[in-house]
């Protein structure tokens, strides 16, 4: 096959700089010892990134308001909306009863009338109570009305597993919402992602499902002055190459980006140079970036926390098979959540969600390196 001629093996190249319209930052969790950016760069948690984005967008546009459970007086169940009630008042930071179908519908109705609601679901598990409004009342309206009724609403909140919260509180909804035409589905990883994508989402004239991650809220990432500027927005529908590589492409989103980056470091030591793509957007899916990467590396591992059947990896695999079949040197590998409701016991829960070693193993498998490296190439 074509790709074989281009395959390289081994050769530690270390991390390369980002390129091509992506920001010139390597994003690492605060625990990393390596920092090679200018001393003027700040660090910011994802929580503060979301909070500042909401604050700035509410200041800029009086039509933006926040609605959800505990967003006001409680300062936010996860403190994402902290301080907003004091600043903007109860008319713009609206505490609701525990009635998702009702307040999601009210949010969509307000958006019909031209306001720009940001509806918070305490977790996206509860969005299932309101899913009819997200899909039938919001996503489809612009189409059914031939463009006359657009719905500039954002539905945001934590998505996917936390830690030990059990089966009803751990599902990832990326696959479900990602399949609906008329919706935009965003999945930030870093603080830069959180700020830029949330600001874009609020400014966007269409309904956006904004899937955050509870465990990332407390993580710090470096943010440049550009990211901190109140006009900073990230384009919707564009993935980011977090780490360039030559041997295998690893796609991931949200918390799994961090895992994929760690997996890439481990793989590096074993002579596999992985390219990590942070999807940032599930719908629109950046097929161009993914396919370009696979055409370069010829191997693909997709990573997600959600259920495997009909998931994000399935769609990415289909896309690559359709558009870049000739470039694949190995079948696509999928790492996903286990095909079971989430168990509570810590050991079982660990088995239910991807771990770094799963990503490493799949990357090696796709490089035909299940055994430790000996001597030279394959």
């Amino acid at each position: 096959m074509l790709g074989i001629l281009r395959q390289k093996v081994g050769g530690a190249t270390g991390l390369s700089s980002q390129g091509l319209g992506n920001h010139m930052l390597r994003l690492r969790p605060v625990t990393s010892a390596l920092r090679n950016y200018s001393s003027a760069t700040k660090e910011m948690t994802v929580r503060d990134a979301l909070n500042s984005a909401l604050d700035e967008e509410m200041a800029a546009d009086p039509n933006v308001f926040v609605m959800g459970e505990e967003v006001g007086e409680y300062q936010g169940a996860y403190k994402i909306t902290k301080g907003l009630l004091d600043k903007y008042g109860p008319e713009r930071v609206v505490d609701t009863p525990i009635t998702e179908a009702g307040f999601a519908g009210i949010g969509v109705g307000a958006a019909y009338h031209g306001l720009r609601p940001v509806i918070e679901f305490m977790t996206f598990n509860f969005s299932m109570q309101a899913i009819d409004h997200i899909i039938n009342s919001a996503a489809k309206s612009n189409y059914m009305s031939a463009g006359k009724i657009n719905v500039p609403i954002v539905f945001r909140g934590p998505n996917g597993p936390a830690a030990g919260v059990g089966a009803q509180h751990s599902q990832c909804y990326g696959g479900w919402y990602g399949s609906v035409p008329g919706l935009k589905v965003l999945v930030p990883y870093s603080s830069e992602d959180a700020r830029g994508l949330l600001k874009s989402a609020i400014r966007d004239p269409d309904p956006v499902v904004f899937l955050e991650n509870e465990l990332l809220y407390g993580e710090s990432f470096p943010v440049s002055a550009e990211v901190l500027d109140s006009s900073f927005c990230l384009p919707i529908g564009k993935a980011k190459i977090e780490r360039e590589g030559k041997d295998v492409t690893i796609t991931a989103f949200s918390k799994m980006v961090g895992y994929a980056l760690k997996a890439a470091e481990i793989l590096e030591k074993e002579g596999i140079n992985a390219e990590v793509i942070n999807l940032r957007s599930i719908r629109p899916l950046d097929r161009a970036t993914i396919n370009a990467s696979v055409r370069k590396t010829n191997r693909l591992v997709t990573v997600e926390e959600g259920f495997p059947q009909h998931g994000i990896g399935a769609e990415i695999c289909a896309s690559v098979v359709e558009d870049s079949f000739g470039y694949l040197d190995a079948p696509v590998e999928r790492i996903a959540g286990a095909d079971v409701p989430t168990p509570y016991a810590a050991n079982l829960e660990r088995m239910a969600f991807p771990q770094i070693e799963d990503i490493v193993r799949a990357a090696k498998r796709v490089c035909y390196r299940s055994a430790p490296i000996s001597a030279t190439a394959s």
Partner: protein
Amino acid sequence: MALTRRISGLLPPVSTASSSSSFLHRRAFSTDDTTTITVETSVPFTSHNCEPPSRSIDTTPKELMKFFTDMALMRRMEIAADSLYKSKLIRGFCHLYDGQEAVSIGMEAAITKKDCIITAYRDHCLFLGRGGTLLESFAELMGRQAGCSNGKGGSMHFYKKDACFFGGHGIVGAQVPLGCGLAFAQKYRKEDHVTFAMYGDGAANQGQLFEALNMAALWDLPAILVCENNHYGMGTAEWRAAKSPAYYKRGDYVPGLKVDGMDAFAVKQACKFAKEHVLKNGPIILEMDTYRYHGHSMSDPGSTYRTRDEISGVRQERDPIERIRKLILAHDLATEKELKDIEKQARKEVDEAIAQAKESPMPDEPELFTNVYRKGYGVESFGTDRKEVRAALP
């Protein structure tokens, strides 16, 4: 581009105006809007947690004539839609409103086009009442470009945003929280306008309705929930679906009014009362006691769960158009022949609109991919065979 036509309150008497899409076209029997005629509603209002309004209502000859003309047009439109459906020019679902016209007409007489209306799928006449045209209506039903949703919505998805008509919704009950959201926006913007969120006796049991009503009451939203109780939720009579079919009382702490929905003046009075009420006190429920002559939809003969005697009984005793006809004749505002001529004219307008709608083409094929997003960023979308058909979303 769908035709829109603003409706002004006063049209000069004209006989040569184009009839194809003029909703307010009417013959000049009486433009008298200074003489006061006092009418009484058929029955007094029954109230829950509030003082009912008076059953004496002032009107003018002009308004009486307008009620008759407009309802005659609505009736004719729905009957014509029945024929079009049977000849397969209308596909899918078609839920007809004939019998219920007084609710739309009475409501419009009490409110402005800045007050919002949202309803479910029995929306053709409400669209007309908001100023939509016959052409937009028939063309949409037949899936043509001249339709109000350019043919992409169909019977259940009529909208008219410039007249604050927000549809047109297929999911039973969903429109009620949406309507409370419209009211939320009106209050947020400190407008002096209100929202009428309409639903049927079937939808009255929906949980989301109570969720929305709770929030509307908590936040004093200017939301008027209008239950169009035609006594049947598809094939299920109200007593089989609701433990308490006193829908005007179902709001508990929210006041309610029961209204004869076949009496346009009762409807008008109730809506006027409700509008004043909600701007000061938060939500109210209006239960319109009404009736649909057709079945639930064109797939339903409407006679398996109710008797033909019941249907013809209502038609004889309570028909909304007949009620107005009697009032007009009683007050000598027009002769029987003149009223028949109005109905003939309505028929003519409807026929012309249908002919025009038939001329309108189906949407061009690229329209499959338009309006998925308001802002598509040129993102790629796919047809059934993605190697054959791809499009960039504008």
